[in-house]
């Protein structure tokens, strides 16, 4: 078997490769090639997306499968450590903190890199030209632009959302008018929030994001000690977003004054 396949031979095999239908030595040669050839990588990705559409979805996994699987998850944070409401991306409860911290710092670097793009709007212009319809396209474009993994992708989704038709901006500021966070709310109620200089909170405290709708405050998420970036859903007729500081892991009804507040611009 010739391991030094020509480019054309490699290309001819990409369909079979995507379906795991090549011999092991061919697979090794193709994988080595993919590492250096973005065009062939794209083609494999495309074939796999088509294959995924062919695969029968079933409806849900058979009864009991999740329970049997969950029993094997080791060192998972206990369910009681999860917040009562909302996202808790900053949750650090449970074991194996070292591993998580390493992952966290890698993610933080990626977010910082992506935040530059958001700030300059450079990625945004590319996004805008590619933006056709709101919902699906945002996901696709953000996916195409993302180079730093899932976390940074969220940042870029937020950047794309800011440019979408019907997107409404929210600038959350402190009572002293210092910027805390920027948010964007899309027509379908999807929202993204990005930190704009909110201070880190001490241990045991968390930010909590609220929608103010018809005089009521509804919890949207519990980002943790740092705001960072999060996605959320707002109810219809949301007039404003508010941030409070609560005891971790967050509360159902806040008794505290908002530390930040911003009107949803029309």
């Amino acid at each position, binding site marked *: 078997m010739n391991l030094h396949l020509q480019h054309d031979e490699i290309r001819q095999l990409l369909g079979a490769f995507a379906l795991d239908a090549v011999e092991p030595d061919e697979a090794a040669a193709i994988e080595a090639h993919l590492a250096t050839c973005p065009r062939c990588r794209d083609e494999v990705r495309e074939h796999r997306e088509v294959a*995924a*559409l062919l695969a*029968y979805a079933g409806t849900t996994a058979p009864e009991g499968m999740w329970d049997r699987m969950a029993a094997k998850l080791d060192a998972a944070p206990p369910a009681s450590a999860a917040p009562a409401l909302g996202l808790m991306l900053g*949750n650090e409860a449970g074991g194996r903190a070292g591993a998580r911290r390493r992952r966290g710092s890698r993610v933080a670097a990626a977010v910082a890199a992506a935040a530059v793009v958001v700030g300059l709007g450079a990625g945004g212009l590319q996004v805008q030209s590619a933006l056709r319809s709101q919902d699906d396209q945002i996901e696709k474009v953000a996916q195409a632009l993302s180079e730093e993994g899932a976390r940074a992708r969220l940042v870029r989704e937020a950047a794309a959302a800011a440019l979408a038709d019907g997107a409404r901006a929210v600038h959350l500021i402190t009572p002293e008018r210092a910027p805390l966070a920027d948010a964007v709310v899309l027509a379908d109620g999807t929202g993204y929030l990005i930190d704009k200089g909110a201070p880190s909170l001490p241990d045991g405290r968390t930010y909590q994001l609220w929608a103010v709708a018809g005089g009521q405050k509804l919890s949207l*998420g519990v980002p943790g000690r740092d705001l960072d970036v999060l996605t959320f859903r707002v109810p219809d007729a949301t007039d404003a977003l508010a941030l409070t500081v609560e005891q971790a892991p967050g509360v159902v009804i806040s008794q505290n004054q908002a530390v930040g507040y911003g009107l949803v611009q029309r």
Partner: protein
Amino acid sequence: MSSTILREMGDAALVVAIGRWRQDALAEAFRRHAGAVHALARRVLCDDAAAEEVVQEIFLRLWNSPDRFDPDRGTLRSFLLAQSHGRAVDILRSDVSRRRREEKDARGTAEAGYDIEHEVWDLAVADHVKEAVADLPVDERRAIELAYFGGHSYREVAELLGAPEGTVKSRIRSGLRRMRGSLSAAGIGAP
């Protein structure tokens, strides 16, 4: 519990939450995709218990190394399905399951082949996928069926169909591209 919000999160955000050791996020990913992952593994392996092992392995891998999922390389669904398929094919090609495979081939012949049309998912895209499959030249369709659902290598497919190997690999590739073309025209799949 935050299940409402998790249910509305995109897959990429879900994987971020899994990276933060949110077991409920893994449960949500499982709810969304385990049925498909299991159905595909079972389709290839013809064995419920072995298919469940594949499902567990794939989701434990996601739990332990969520950063292996790169949204640049496609959707979470296709990532999980590709992993499930690869694992199922590995098992199929191992000695242990050789006999099971021979039984399966005998059954496959008795059933007069596989039928992609019964395997497409029953969501909004199903009709378009069915159409795209129906539009494939029959040779391309058979080659893809035998490779993907039968777990056969293109060489084995060539043998089964009595066609040259080179022809089979180009049928698989052109069939996949043709489907992608008709699906994109219908607004399905990545741009």
